[in-house]
């Protein structure tokens, strides 16, 4: 059987402005702004819908593929 690939969001901490736009639109509630410094994603629960990437004004969220 081949490996199953799935998409998930990833945040570049140094670019994130911690505005919380991503947190507001995440349907699973797996994106959180941590201590006012950066957003973090629980990739084990992320469904890779890309809503957070669409709203991020800093371009800090990208979609990655994991096996």
């Amino acid at each position, binding site marked *: 059987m081949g490996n199953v690939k799935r998409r998930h969001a990833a945040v570049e901490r140094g670019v994130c402005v911690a505005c919380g736009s991503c947190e*507001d*639109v995440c349907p699973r509630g797996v994106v959180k*702004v941590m*201590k*006012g*410094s950066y957003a973090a994603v629980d990739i084990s629960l992320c469904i890779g819908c890309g809503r957070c990437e*669409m*709203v991020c*004004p800093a371009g800090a969220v990208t979609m990655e593929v994991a096996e």
Partner: protein
Amino acid sequence: MKPIQPIKKRWYHYLWIWSVFYFAMGFFNIIFAWLGLISFFLPFVFAIGFGTKDFCNKYCDRGQLLRVIGGQTGFSTGKLMPSWLRSSWFRYGFLTFFMSMFGQMLYTTYLVSAGAKELSEAVTLFWSIRVPWEWAYTAGSVEPWQAQFAFGLYSLMLTSAIIGILLMLLFKPRSWCAVCPMGTMTQMICKVRNNNE
């Protein structure tokens, strides 16, 4: 862009009403501009007191206004800002510029209070365009320096709102948040407070 709604509607999603109320009231009576200090102090309360950016994340009326107009009604192109606008040097440069202009506004208020300068009954947009605003102030209703501070603060708030709306129309709804001086300062405070995590 395709409208994107928050997943759960919360009470703070309606805080954009405060922005509309603020600018409307300042149009008729400039003294209401003093209420803008709430938006200056509350982010610091959250950042210094709790080490969070909850003000930006939830309670910022400006952020909610841009989200509603740009994100919910689809007036935003949804494009990512050019990289130079998102860069750290621009962000910190804009913060420096913004704070210098805030300092200059405080200095002008001081000059008026000391009697060295006449009260200017005008709103200054983009720190250079003087817009007459005499109808919003009744001479003698408050001390001249109080009126001067109100005109100055309203100018700053209106200018930054216009920049925010322009960025919202051209780029993603909350593009202003990527350059917002208050957001930059509170993120710096949070990083220091939380030991640069």
